[in-house]
């Protein structure tokens, strides 16, 4: 019971107080613990904890396949993907470089080299000739397998060159351009991630279509500011003249007049009067696209971004900051114990 109840709370309290008040202590060991070690301890724990998660994932997916539950092919795909990336990271080096140090006849060696680096033979020959004395030329893209690299080495050696295979160091193989892991990252992981993020564009459209309805005053405000920001933020907003916006305002106000007074004469008067005023003003000023600035979408968008938006964001941030502090104090003092299951 002590291990499950009192000990976790004691650890949370001690570490919490140490980290909180350690910031006020000018003692190197405490400062080092607070600034560096505390978060790194967590990172180390989290890194080892990944094994738990991975095993859990594999277990569940395997059970799905074994029991042929609904969607089991996806579980098989998950296991294949897991195995492939695990293999590319930990088991297969996937990065073997071929280095050419010498050649008797550059033209012959260039014949082999050209096919490996996707260039014509002349360009490959020039690369070899430009190689300084005593230097080596490394083929840009490493080979996934040792045998693949060895094959090329044999061909180059047979063509009168001197080539050898050099394996990339473990660790560097992750970030080496052209390695198996890098290939997986660039051609599988990157497009998949970008696709998922791109879905947001579609979902934003469908969410906006569904949710941006003029139900009440706040919803109307949300709608109008949303439209202004969406249009003002992109180049096309800069091409929408402020006079066009003024005409829309005139028509909207006239709709309001109609709703309020329910009188056709008043409505007609407001429409015609408004349009006349805007038209005359436009003709006098020469219809500048960005004047009056108060009706120019990019200027409006800037104002909404910088004034009400930031004010609201600040208020929420301050509230959230207080909430985080209060919640943290509850955990440190042991008032809130639900996170350990109590």
């Amino acid at each position: 019971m002590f291990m499950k109840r009192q000990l976790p709370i004691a650890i949370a309290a001690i570490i919490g107080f140490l980290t909180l008040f350690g910031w006020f202590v000018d003692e190197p060991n405490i400062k080092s613990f607070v600034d560096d070690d505390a978060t790194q301890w967590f990172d180390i724990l989290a890194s080892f904890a990944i094994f738990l998660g991975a095993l859990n994932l594999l277990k569940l997916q395997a059970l799905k396949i074994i029991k042929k539950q609904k969607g089991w092919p996806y579980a098989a795909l998950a296991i294949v993907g897991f195995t492939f990336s695990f293999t590319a990271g930990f088991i297969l080096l996937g990065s073997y470089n071929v280095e050419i140090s010498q050649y008797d006849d550059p033209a012959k060696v260039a014949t082999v080299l050209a096919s490996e680096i996707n260039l014509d033979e002349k360009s490959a020959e020039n690369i070899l000739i430009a190689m300084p004395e005593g230097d080596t030329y490394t083929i840009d893209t490493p080979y996934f397998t040792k045998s693949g690299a060895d094959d090329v080495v044999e061909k180059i050696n047979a063509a009168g060159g001197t080539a050898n295979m050099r394996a990339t160091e473990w660790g560097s193989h992750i970030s080496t351009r052209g390695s198996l892991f890098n290939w997986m990252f660039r051609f599988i992981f990157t497009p998949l991630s970008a696709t998922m993020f791109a879905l947001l564009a579609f979902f934003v459209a469908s969410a906006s279509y569904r949710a941006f309805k003029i139900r009440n005053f706040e919803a109307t405000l949300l709608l109008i500011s949303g439209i202004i920001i969406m249009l003002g933020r992109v180049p096309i907003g800069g091409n929408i003249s402020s006079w066009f916006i003024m005409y829309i305002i005139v028509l909207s106000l006239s709709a309001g007049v109609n709703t309020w007074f329910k009188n056709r004469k008043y409505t007609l008067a407001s429409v015609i009067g408004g349009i006349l005023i805007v038209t005359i003003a436009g003709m006098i000023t020469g219809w500048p696209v960005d004047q009056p600035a108060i009706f120019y979408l990019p200027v409006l968008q800037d104002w909404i971004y910088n004034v009400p938006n930031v004010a609201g964001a600040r208020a929420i941030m301050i509230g959230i900051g207080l909430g985080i502090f209060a919640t943290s104090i509850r955990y440190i003092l042991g008032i809130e114990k639900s996170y350990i299951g109590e």
Partner: protein
Amino acid sequence: MEKFLDFIVRAGSLDRRYIFVVIALVVMLPLFFPLNLPIRPTVSSQTIYDTVEKLESGDKALVSFEYGPSTKPEIHPMAIALLRHLFEKDVKVYITCLWPDGQFMAMEAIQQVAVNQYQKVYGEDYVLLGFRPGNEAVIKGLVSNFRKVYTVDAQGNFLDDIPMMNGINKVADFDYLFSASAGYPGTVEWVQYAADPTGVTMGTGTTSIQVNEVMPYVQAGQIKGILGGMPGAAEYEKLIGQPGIGTSGMDAQSVAHIVIVGFIIFGNISFFVERRRSKKY
């Protein structure tokens, strides 16, 4: 007229897949038929540009890559544009990554700009320090003792053997700091633990969604300017005079936004018609 109103009411509860198809079309078509809409830099982007313009040849800039493949379309163009600007001015660029994916993004950016475009020399003009785990602990470590966090660069070279690392012992030794960030850890952590305490001038580029969170720091002057999403990238490309992916994406984004606004207006018309009918009956 009744039939038309019926159609509007039915279209109000349009299957979302039709919306997806329309959005897909309006995003794809401008990529094939560019509109070349003029791009107007905002004050935030201009501030970043002006700050970098003030840097001189030989100044040291720390650029941190905190984004991955998913946010690459938004942030990579601005990272590329910034690197171009820094290399144009012969500023020495030091690249760190707080995200593991960030190192791959940094490598691509370096290959495209430093190697292919400007033929800069590694170790003299730029250095890729690489990814370190630890989130804000890394930043705190860099602030107090750079070499405690980085003993070698991403290629395994000792920092002492890299000429441009001479004199670099903490964040305060840099003249400029830029964070290309898509989340945590990122801009907020850099400004809280590095830029503000040390007084190093900082700029940032974030996804459009994150601009909200970062704006209070920009307004307070703790961050000098912000590039917000792809529009921010396009604006910066315009300022440096080298259009790139950001610029080419703006046509598609512009048209997509207009279409979304159109959908919203149409949805509201349908909503009103339906409401009037339900009141009537």
